[in-house]
């Protein structure tokens, strides 16, 4: 039987595989399960230096096969070197689909490869399905937000292979894992090549607080909460949550940029998102509407945030939150 591949770019930084790559491997496993007419395999491509156990991690997270290029010149991401190695692999093995995380690296790399291979690339997608209207097909229908999240488009690539897409991090579940999963690890040759970009220095951006993208509970405030973020802080401390903010607040200098949620901030997906005094502009909701539960408090019954909320409360957050804090303190006292 003919075999086809879904190739997944495995992104490592400082030899840590990025979670979006695991999300894509899990998603690829779900896709190959749905394709019945040909045998499909999930294949990883991993570039780096001194990768050690990492190829096995890729197998354990869902790849049947992983191609590895291990060389000091590949330790850090380089547009030209990575494009070269991956494009050569794709030309040789002709995968049917190729998924890449829509990180800064992925969105630099994927268009470069797609242009070299003269194939189509769907950008920053949030959903992948197999064409539901046809049988015996492996055509992907890939849905993505455009127009600042106002509009969604479902994109196909009917006549070119591989069908490529970058997929937004934190949208799909990384739920596949099997320890010591068997699979094939294949080493790719690498010939050193000159780069026209040289890295002089890397600096960590100042990171003021805990990471909002990994919190279970986000207590988020908008301009309606200006000057009373201490209420949000207190709720966060009492619940083990983290404070986040809208751009309206960040632009006012009342919160650091790294806790901004939304299109130009971070995409978050907590179990609970408590939105206080946030109007719910699409640029904001684009970054949080995948949260499991959303509670919105807003004094304006017409506020668009209610359109994405699981529970919408029309009211004054400045009056409600102190009562929530009281309740939480009482609860803690009773249970300690």
């Amino acid at each position, binding site marked *: 039987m003919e075999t086809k591949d879904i190739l997944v770019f495995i992104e490592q930084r400082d030899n840590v595989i990025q979670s979006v790559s695991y999300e894509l491997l899990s998603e690829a496993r779900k896709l190959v399960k749905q394709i019945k007419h040909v045998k499909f395999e999930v294949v990883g491509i991993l570039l780096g230096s001194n990768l050690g156990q990492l190829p096995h991690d890729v197998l354990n997270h869902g790849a049947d096969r992983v191609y590895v290029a291990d060389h000091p010149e590949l330790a850090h991401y380089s547009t030209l070197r990575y494009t070269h190695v991956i494009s050569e692999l794709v030309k040789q093995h002709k995968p049917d689909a190729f998924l890449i995380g829509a990180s800064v690296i992925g969105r630099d790399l994927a268009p470069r490869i797609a242009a070299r291979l003269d194939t189509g690339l769907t950008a920053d997608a949030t959903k992948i399905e197999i064409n539901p209207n046809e049988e015996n097909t492996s055509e992907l229908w890939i849905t993505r937000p455009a127009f600042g999240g106002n509009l969604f488009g479902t994109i*196909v690539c009917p006549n070119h292979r591989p069908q490529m897409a970058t997929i937004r991090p934190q949208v799909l579940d990384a739920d596949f894992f099997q320890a010591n999963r068997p699979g094939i690890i294949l080493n790719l040759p690498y010939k050193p090549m000159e780069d026209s970009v040289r890295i002089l220095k890397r600096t960590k951006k100042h990171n003021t607080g805990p990471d909002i993208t990994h919190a279970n509970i986000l207590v988020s405030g908008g301009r309606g909460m200006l000057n009373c973020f201490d209420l949000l802080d207190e709720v966060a401390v009492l619940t083990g949550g983290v404070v986040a903010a809208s751009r309206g607040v960040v632009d006012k200098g009342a919160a650091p940029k790294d806790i901004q949620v939304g299109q130009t901030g971070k995409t978050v997906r907590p179990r609970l998102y408590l939105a206080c005094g946030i109007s719910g502009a699409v640029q904001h909701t684009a970054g949080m509407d995948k949260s499991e539960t959303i509670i919105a408090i807003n004094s304006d019954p017409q506020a668009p945030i209610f359109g994405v909320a699981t529970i919408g409360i029309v009211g004054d957050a400045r009056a409600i939150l102190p009562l929530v804090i009281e309740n939480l303190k009482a609860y803690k006292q009773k249970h300690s």
Partner: protein
Amino acid sequence: MNIIVLVKQVPDTTEMKIDPIHGTLIRAGVPSIINPDDMAGIEAALSLKDRYGGTITAVSMGPLQAERMLREILGRGVDQAVLLSDAKFAGADTWATSTTLAAWLKTQTFDLIIAGRQAIDGDTAQVGPQVAEKLGIPQVSYVESIEACDGTWLRLSKAYEEDSELLEVKLPALITTLSTMNRDRGMNAVDAWAAYDKPLTLVRFSDLDLPESDVGLKGSPTQVRKIFTRSLEAASLKTDLSPEDAARLITDVLIKTMEA
């Protein structure tokens, strides 16, 4: 330094409303603007020219109405403008867009091409890197500041999710700029007056060395199968809770989530 800036005219998506009955975008009355990341590219080009001299050319592919935007850009101090416009270009995806732009760029000499990181309508962030690949030149995307240029190497800072990288790229190269990298200087009277005397060239499909199968909708490997807006389902909206009842409801959900 010869700099070419790629610019796209876009609808101001922050002004866009959704027709709640038909679920379509209401475009009427939405102003067209210069894509915000491209505005940063124009300012970056102007400040490079301030320091190192040279000429700046703005290039756009789009309908004839984009001429108005290009005139405005000339009024901001750019030296010349080129509009690639032809019915055959319509419906291009990013592959066909970059192929068309690159076909014209191949006929030019330049040290640096500046594109915006992302257009606020298509939102793909693909055209810059794809143009660089089609031209066979290096790229640096997500540029947050430009430091200096010694004629061969351009030193700049690139933004990652959590780090910044200071790096140098060998010219000729393409960079993509973030709207936050600078603040535009606005228009001054002298340049604004001169805008109508500066060259604005129209380039048609027949002026390019390209097969028809490479441009527009027909030349696009991707196709938009369907378009839809988010259905704004009514949430379970509580309009008449007392603050005490609201607080109780919220506390319950918080505790349930904490303990789960």
